[in-house]
């Protein structure tokens, strides 16, 4: 299974080994792990919500786009949902290719599109509950939209 959404943690090494299993022509494996930052102690936890069904389908679609664009020998995407503590893993992307440039670019592409196109939402639970007057939902970042745009294919 290339795409998984789960509450449990993941093990990057295990996913790399699974992806490389039986293939001897892989020259480059890139992993990206996104973690929950503690924002200097401000954050008590993140809560990750998703749209079941659409989230899996959307990630699958992004993976297929990456596979069309780069000669990949394997891709794995795991996105966690539920309560996630500071320092814990949120997302894992693994890409494997014969050459490093394809593996790097595909991993960055996948992360940029995951950020802006996959139906997940982050809510912050603050350590100082008195400060928590805001609703806590993380706002979408213009920088992420910009990051996504750079992958547009030139006509």
């Amino acid at each position: 299974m290339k795409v998984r959404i789960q509450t449990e943690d993941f093990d990057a090494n295990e996913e790399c080994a699974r992806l490389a299993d039986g293939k001897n022509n892989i020259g480059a494996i890139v992993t990206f792990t996104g973690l929950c930052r503690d924002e200097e102690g401000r954050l008590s936890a993140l809560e990750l919500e998703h749209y079941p069904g659409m989230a899996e389908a959307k990630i699958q679609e992004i993976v297929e786009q990456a596979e069309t664009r780069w000669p990949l020998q394997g891709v794995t995407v795991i996105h966690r949902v539920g309560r996630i503590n500071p320092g814990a893993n949120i997302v894992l992307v693994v890409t494997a290719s014969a050459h490093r440039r394809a593996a790097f670019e595909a991993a960055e592409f996948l992360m940029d599109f995951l950020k802006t196109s996959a139906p997940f939402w982050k809510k912050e639970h603050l350590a100082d509950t008195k400060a928590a007057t805001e609703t806590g939902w993380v706002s979408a970042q213009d920088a992420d939209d910009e990051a996504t745009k750079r992958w547009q294919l030139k006509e």
Partner: protein
Amino acid sequence: MKIYYFAWVRERTGRSDETVTLPEGVTTVAELIDWLKTRGPEFEFAFENERFVRAAVDQQLVSHDTSLKDVNEVAFFPPMTGG
């Protein structure tokens, strides 16, 4: 038709999903939003800034002028912040 609400749209409407029968004259996402807003202050609150609310129709992200013809499932949510 099934409607899903996520993140702060869910919190504001006070529900994660519901099944509705569309009244006569509601044929697009925008018209659905207008109708939902007549159902109470929690819906007015949820859709007070419509341009911040994204819509998916049968799990495809769409613009608010999209038709609801033959649609099984509509979802409303804020811009996505995964990854």
